[in-house]
């Protein structure tokens, strides 16, 4: 088991910089998820840790030892690829044992490790099959099994579940969580799916455009996003952003008025230097933070376009008088039957024009 430390790590492809100085500190045995939209550099970062890509700048240390110039094979890591990358001409058993056989590991030990991995992943009855004859979920297990037999200090996963259907994805997510508990190894997991990140991670690293936007525990990111990107990325459906401006300030905070909604004023306590009255800001409200009229900080009249019933809860897709789209979460029992409805804002976040959180 080992810590993983990234200090100002950068990656350039030619003149094109795709990772801009990432600082990430991963504790021994921690499950860390790199999450961000496609193309933000998650895989590149992971592949630099694995040693499959050169590091253009900064330092990566595994278990306290700088590995910039260490061969991938000697870094004590194992990786699970999105495409599984199984050896197509080998049986499951051979896929699992290949690396150990090729490096002269004693046969008894190899057999023991393969047997154990097969038991952990419940693939013992598939050992003689070729990858072609396996379902997506089974291939994924074999790919994970191949990582397990290496008994690595650090597991790396690159979007391991994105080729599976929704139901299997949920099931494998639970299995990976269980695996982490069972093995206690450090795991770094890349995904573009915030649900996967929220459910699996001890800590999440949110990336955008090669920058680390925020690092924190799932609930910290949800409750206390540093900026509008993280606020929008974490949580589903995503947070609503409504244009507003400052109408007053005093020692304890500011009063903001939603654009085009003279009656909707929200008082926000601020400890940072508050912006001057007249400055434009953005108010963020999560769908689940709307309440009945009169029970929150301010009321807002909306017109409902579409209602989505999920069973216990429903989502109202609505529009404000100013023409802004908002999504409102409601108990199914409380869905109004008229299109015009007034809701209250129970909790909100304030962002400046650049998208940075004001608090």
């Amino acid at each position, binding site marked *: 088991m080992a810590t993983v430390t990234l200090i100002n790590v950068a990656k350039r492809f030619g003149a094109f910089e795709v990772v801009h100085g990432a600082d990430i500190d991963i504790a021994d045995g921690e499950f860390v998820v790199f999450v961000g939209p496609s193309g933000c550099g998650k895989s590149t970062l992971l592949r630099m840790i*694995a040693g*499959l890509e050169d590091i253009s700048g900064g330092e990566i240390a595994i278990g306290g030892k700088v590995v910039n110039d260490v061969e*991938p*094979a*000697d870094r004590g*890591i*194992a*990786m699970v*690829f999105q*495409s599984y*990358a*199984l*050896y*197509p*001409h080998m049986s499951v058993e051979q896929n699992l044992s*290949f*690396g150990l056989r*090729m*490096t002269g590991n004693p046969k008894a030990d190899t057999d023991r490790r393969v047997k154990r991995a097969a038991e952990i992943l419940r693939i013992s009855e598939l050992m003689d099959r070729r990858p072609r004859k396996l379902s997506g979920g089974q291939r994924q297990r074999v790919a994970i099994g*191949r990582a397990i037999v*290496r008994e690595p200090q650090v597991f790396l996963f690159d979007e391991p579940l994105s080729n599976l259907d929704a139901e299997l994805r949920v099931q494998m997510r639970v299995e990976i969580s269980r695996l982490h508990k069972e093995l206690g190894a450090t795991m770094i997991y890349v995904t573009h799916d915030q649900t996967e990140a929220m459910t699996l991670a001890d800590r999440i690293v949110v990336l955008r455009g090669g920058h680390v936007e925020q690092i924190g525990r799932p609930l910290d990111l949800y409750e206390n996003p540093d900026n509008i990107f993280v606020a929008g990325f974490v949580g589903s459906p995503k947070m609503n952003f409504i244009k507003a401006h400052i109408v007053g300030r005093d020692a304890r905070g500011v009063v903001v008025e939603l654009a085009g909604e003279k009656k909707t004023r929200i008082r926000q306590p601020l400890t940072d230097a508050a912006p001057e009255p007249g400055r434009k800001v953005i108010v963020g409200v999560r769908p689940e933070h709307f309440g009945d009229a009169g029970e929150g900080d301010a009321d807002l009249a909306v017109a409902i376009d579409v209602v989505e019933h999920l069973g216990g809860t429903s989502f109202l897709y609505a529009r404000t008088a100013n023409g802004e789209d908002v999504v409102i979460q409601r108990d199914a029992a409380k869905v109004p039957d008229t299109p015009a409805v007034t809701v209250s804002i129970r909790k909100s976040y304030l962002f400046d024009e650049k998208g940075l959180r004001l608090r």
Partner: protein
Amino acid sequence: MRNRNATAYRFLTPYLLIFAIFWVWPIISSFLISFQATRTVPWRFAPGFNWGRLIGDPAFFNALKNTLLILVIQVPVMIALAMVMAVLLNSPLLKARGLYRFAFFAPVVVGEVAYSAVFRLMFSLDFGIVNKLLNSIGLPKVDWFSNVTPAMALIMIAVTWRWAGYNAIILLAGMQSIPEDVYEAATLDRVSKLKQFFHITLPLLKPVIVFCAVLSIIGTMQLFTEPFLITERGGPGGGTETLGLLLYRQGFRSLNFGYASAVAYTMAGLAIAITLVQLWLMREPK
């Protein structure tokens, strides 16, 4: 549905007609001719005449021996060489890849007569660059055209030069269809590059290698141009005569079409037999 097929076949008729006349009929006709004595006028049906002669003809066995010898040595050497070339072409370290790819492929499109003439020049006893090179590293001159063993070697060198690049390009295409991440997984599995080649590249390339081998076997069974042009009609003294050359001499020199047809069918039969054995040996384990 039926109707649409009928229309399609009507459009295909001109092609099918030509195919039948110039392709199917000669195949059937030469088979029939192989059962006729064709040195008499008119030809007469004599089933044992050509086939019987074949079994006892030293010229036939000489040609068969030469053809098989070339096959057994040249095809494996060429495919091994093609594999090395493909690995080099596939290396990320290689600069100007397109140029090499073209250079390797170029021999196939060079005219046969031109290439044979150049080979005769290069290997000529007193003026050839090959003997000059041999001399310069202290080896004796070789009389490539007057002795059987060097002449056979020359044929094999020439055929290999002409077709190795072609096979390398096919192997390269096969190599490039192996996903990169399989190698990355093996690298992380601590498997060395050499072992990756023998345990991943080669097994995954097996179907492509079999394809190349089959093409080469069929090509070598029909070998004609090189012994005809480079070693001057299978010289010295029939030392490089192949089945293709024997067929040509019997058919178009002696106008003995019956015997030539029997030789042609023997060549085709051997090519099919060897290919089947090859496919059987390389079959996928269940």
